[in-house]
Each structure stands twice: as structure tokens, then as C-alpha cells.
């Protein structure tokens, strides 16, 4: 009730990674492939997912909280994955 900010647009990047102890066959295969290509300096590769979300929220905190909730409910599988949420500058589109 006390909140009166007008909602604005936010960009969030979610990174979902297999948990440390969980087997990551993708990462392993990619590591091998990089080595075959001559990138011997690589010691480990973990492979995960990345999502860019555009959403409206009352403020940055609310946006981050909402995206974390989305991760818990859908974007990440808590049994085998960890996630991280990062709010990207509201104006930009957060991609290179």
C-alpha cells in the first residue's frame, strides 16, 4: 500500500548451472572438444543455461525478487541446479 513508485522495465540475466557435485556430461564433452582444438590450457568446463528476461516491477529489488521466484518455480531444477540472478542496467538490453 505504501509503495507508490510507478512500475518500470528491468532486464535480468539468469544463469543456471549444474551443481558442483552433479555430473555434467555436456561440460565434459565440450572440455574434450576444446582440448582437441588445441586449447590445452582449459582445466574445466561446466555447461548451463542462460535466460534474459524483460519484466516490469516497482523497483530493482522487487524485480530481482520476482526473478528469483521464477527460478525456484520454473527456470532451475533445484534437485540438480543452482541459479544466479543479475539485474542488468535497466536501459540497455544487457547483451553484447
Amino acid at each position, binding site marked *: 500500500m505504501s509503495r507508490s513508485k510507478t512500475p518500470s522495465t528491468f532486464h535480468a540475466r539468469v544463469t543456471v548451472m549444474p551443481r558442483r557435485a552433479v555430473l555434467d*556430461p*555436456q561440460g565434459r*564433452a*565440450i572440455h574434450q*572438444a576444446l582440448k*582437441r*582444438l588445441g586449447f590445452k590450457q582449459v582445466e574445466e568446463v561446466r*555447461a548451463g543455461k542462460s535466460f534474459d528476461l524483460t519484466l516490469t516491477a516497482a523497483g530493482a529489488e522487487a524485480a530481482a525478487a520476482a526473478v528469483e521466484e521464477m527460478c525456484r518455480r520454473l527456470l532451475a531444477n533445484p534437485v540438480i541446479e543452482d541459479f544466479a540472478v543479475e539485474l542488468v542496467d535497466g536501459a540497455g538490453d544487457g547483451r553484447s
Partner: protein
Amino acid sequence: MRCGIVVFPGSNCDHDVYHVLKHVLGQEAMFLWHDATDLKDCELIVLPGGFAYGDYLRAGAMAARSRIMSAVARHAERGGLVLGICNGFQVLLEAGLLPGAMRPNRGLRFLCQDVYLRLERHDLPFTHAYRDVRVARMPIAHAEGCYVASDEELDRLEAGGQVVLRYGDAGGGRGDDDPAVNPNGSARAIAGIVNRQGNVLGMMPHPERCAEAVLGNEDGLPLFRGLTEEHGRTAR
């Protein structure tokens, strides 16, 4: 004809292609290991279906960078025949031997079903044996078969007659937006393309799975027969 079938780690239609070439058509068929540098004088190189390297990064991505692919590229450059089926098509795209890329099917699920194909050209070694057949039925079995390329690229392909196979309906009509006709959502319903010189074909459907009467469908046989016959004609 000497036919080489490339075995990448994770190829799983290699035996099926071998069976058709060797036992159905009586050709000289052999397997070529992914890290070989030499194609053993094979005139036809087949990149078979399957999940090379598990398709773990993108379908075909890691296989496209394996050692044998430089030899395959040289073979193609010299005009040698190359056929990429399903995963093999994905490898050809990733290797840059054919333009464009594959994305996940429009429904985001693996699809194993029969499709109808419009044969858009009959003057290639891959298709001449179809003679006046305009529509063929073949199975697909893939998760990433949605062909994409830029509009300019697509126009170039069409203009150059490089679109060889297109998903269509049973009567040969088009229905590019209809999931029943173009199940993976490919741009312009493209199911198979050839390079400009006409000697490298990539296709998502599996002709080797419908090349024997006992399996209830022989629509794939003319493709292999044409390749080996064509050779017979030109070599003599």
C-alpha cells in the same frame, strides 16, 4: 562404387546406411573413423545420422571440428559426392559446407514420424533416379531440424536452385506454416539443400530407413541407387 561412411563418436545410423549401400545395393561400403585424415579413395562420403558427441553443445558442432572433416571439405571442393543425413546435415552446416543453421523443432520435442517431401529438382546425382516422382514419404527423427538462415541467404538458395527437398503435403502441396506439413518449422519448409556445385547434399529425413520393401516403404532407395548409378554412368 566405393562408399565411405564416417563414424563420429555417437553416430548411430552408420550401420543403417552401410546396410543399404552394401546389402541392398551391393556397393563397396566401408566405415571411416572420425580422426582419419584419409578418405581411402571413397567416391561417396556419407555423414550418417545420430548424436555425434551427444549433440551436447549444438547438434553437429563438435563433429564438424573433427579431423576427418578437412578431408571431407577437400573432397567436396574437388567435386566429390557428400551426403549428410540428419545429424550429418547438421554437421555439414556447422562445418560451413552448407549455409544456414539448425534450431530446435518448433514444438521443442523430438519428433519421429513420416513426412512428405516435395522433390524440387531431379537433375542431381542425389535425385535423378526419382525420374518423374514429385513426392516421397520418408521418416524423420530429430529434435533440432528447424532450418534457419537469413532472408538474403534463403533467397540465394532458392534462386540458385539449391533447395532440393521441401516438406509438403501428401499431394505435393505446400503448407509451410502447418505443423502437420512442416513439423519442425523450417524456414520455407526446407528439408534438404545442396551446395552451389550440386555435389554436397544435406537432408533431415532418413532415406536409409525406407529403402526396403519389408519395412513397408522404399521411397528412400532411389536416392542411393541414383548416387551409385550416376557414378556408373560418369565413370565409364
